């Protein structure tokens, strides 16, 4: 099985490289990156074959392509990869607007390739076990859900995250989609309405996007949930951030911490001191294995384009709500 990584713009590309190396029958053909200086640096750091043109990598007989470019360029690379007959794993959020997202689906349908959205937290044991409890009805009627996806501002790793044109938005765009996807998957219901308060007070240099957001969602069945998607952890926090969820039910409450399993390390001269080092299995590994398995078994992946699209709709509706200062219905043509 031949896999290529299209662009190293997204920092997850480095994780996927590790994940792919752990799968025996996968050949990681290489990565493409068209910005020459960066590409040379990533090639040196990763030890991978570097293709200076995406088209060159796509011409090397790939079964699957992982799209890790800036969000605004996903469409261009997804279309090219689909035309080259590759199955696709696309970084989240899948696009900066719904039109691009739909065009990506069209390209994949036309070429008969599958599209998987990169939502690794679906593969975290904390999430799968919470989902099993919810679906068994362990908590009775659910009164509310409290979702948190905090992180540091990611612009220290990749500057384009702070660029509105390239990323389509900041904290809300970056983090809302993860929790929306988990909500939809765990509770098996669509989001009906969203209200959001958003600000950009973090004041980092060269950032023209939002840095904090609080959302209140209503699901189609009336259930309420909050999302805190803020880049509100300092860059000197013990870890990049966290993903947490509380499910408050009549018969009990679940408190989930997706990254609870960690040690606290104090190490002289370390960039984060102390730092939290995880000891549970990297959910990205299971996600990449699912991508590879779906290609091998010639079936749709467990996480689809639809999942990426639904999550994007909510993020875009949150920006709309902030602008209008009122709750916004999902699917009411926002963000076109």
């Amino acid at each position, binding site marked *: 099985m031949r896999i290529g990584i299209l662009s190293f713009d997204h920092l997850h590309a480095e994780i996927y490289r590790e994940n792919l190396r752990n799968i025996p029958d996968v050949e990681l053909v290489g990565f493409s990156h068209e910005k020459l200086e960066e590409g040379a640096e990533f090639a040196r750091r990763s030890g991978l074959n570097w293709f200076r043109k995406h088209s060159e990598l796509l011409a090397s007989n790939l079964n699957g392509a992982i799209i890790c470019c800036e969000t605004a360029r996903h469409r261009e690379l997804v279309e090219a990869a689909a035309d080259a007959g590759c199955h696709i794993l696309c970084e989240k959020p899948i696009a900066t607007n719904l039109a691009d997202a739909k065009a990506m689906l069209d390209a994949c349908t036309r070429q008969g390739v599958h599209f998987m959205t990169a939502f690794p937290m679906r593969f975290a044991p904390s999430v799968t076990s919470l989902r099993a409890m919810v679906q068994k009805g362990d908590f009775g009627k659910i009164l509310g859900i409290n979702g948190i996806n905090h992180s540091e501002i990611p612009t220290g790793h990749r500057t384009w995250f702070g660029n509105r044109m390239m990323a389509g938005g900041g904290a809300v765009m970056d983090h809302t989609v993860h929790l929306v996807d988990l909500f939809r998957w765990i509770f098996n219901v669509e989001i009906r309405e969203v209200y959001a308060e958003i600000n950009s*007070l973090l004041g980092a240099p060269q950032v023209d996007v939002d840095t904090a957001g609080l959302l209140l969602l209503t699901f189609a069945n009336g259930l309420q949930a909050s999302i805190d998607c803020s880049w509100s952890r300092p860059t000197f926090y013990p870890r990049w951030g966290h993903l947490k969820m509380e499910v408050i039910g009549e018969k009990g*409450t679940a408190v989930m911490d997706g990254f609870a399993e960690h040690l606290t390390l104090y190490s002289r001269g370390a960039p984060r001191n102390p730092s939290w080092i995880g000891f549970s299995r990297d959910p990205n590994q299971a996600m990449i294995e699912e991508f590879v398995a779906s290609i091998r078994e010639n079936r749709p992946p467990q996480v689809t384009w639809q999942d990426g699209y639904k999550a994007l709709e909510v993020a875009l509706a949150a920006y709309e709500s902030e602008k209008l200062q009122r709750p916004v219905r999902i699917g009411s043509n926002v963000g076109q």
Partner: protein
Amino acid sequence: MRVGIVGAGTMGAAHAAAWRSTKARLIGCSSAHQSQSDQLAWLHGIRSYRAFTDLLQEVDIVDICTPTATHRSMVLEAAHAGKHVLCEKPVALRQEDAEAMVRACEGAGVRFFVCMVVRFFPQYRLAKDLVSEGKIGNLTVLRLKRVSYPPRKKVENWYIDETRSGGMIVDLMIHDFDFARWVGGDVERVFARRSQSDQGPAEYAQAILRFKSGAIGLIEGGWAYPPGVFRTGFDLSGSDGLIEWNSDQPGPVDVLRAPGAANAAAVGLPVSGIAEDPYTIEICHAYDAIRTGKSFDVTAEDALQSLRIALAARESINTNQPAIL
């Protein structure tokens, strides 16, 4: 100075114990429930008065710990009698009630202190001080949590009667609305949602605040956990740092027992610090300020503003639109 307590339930008992740490003379108590008043009086060796009016005549300070719906008339009566007043939070059910109470005390020249006790919890006070000292820069986004179980008083469970307590949002979430204002300044608008159980008084609410400064905050409140479980916490994020605290953290002494032995109190009280009882700090502060004429750390205006936010949150729930303050 002579002090009397009205209301001998959860808060009356907490305040009575706290008054013992002051130099004031706690002389008596009264309650609509004679037996509760008698029991509290017996415990502290003070007199149990049949009538609030009789108690009022023999004290310099009256401490009102009765259901919220009675606050207005009691504070007005105390003010007319020329007595200083301490009043449990929430100050009142309606803004006009609170304003009338403030006016009556000002008119009578007596001091009026609303017991917003969270400001006297050591961890909340320290967090406020750290924010004020600029340790985390400008506040950008904050999260406050206060989720407990439904009050289950055997006699007169007035907390769950919204017409007497204001309900969970006014009675419980007001603490965090007040703390939010204290650390974040004035609030511009609030949007809230609530979900209620079909089978009992359990409810859970989430409110998003927008501050005048541009900062935003999520306030989570509920009577939604199993009996005996009460979780609180705050997460204050600023341009230069972060403050985290939550009641799930290990305490100075955690006692492990066989599960199932929990004997939950009628009304849950949150954890504070091991050595400092916030009710005692609060009462000592109020007494000291009354005795010396110094200003209170929590003003009647603060109490009123937190009530306004709570009422706005309820309005937002009803309209499904943000409520502008």
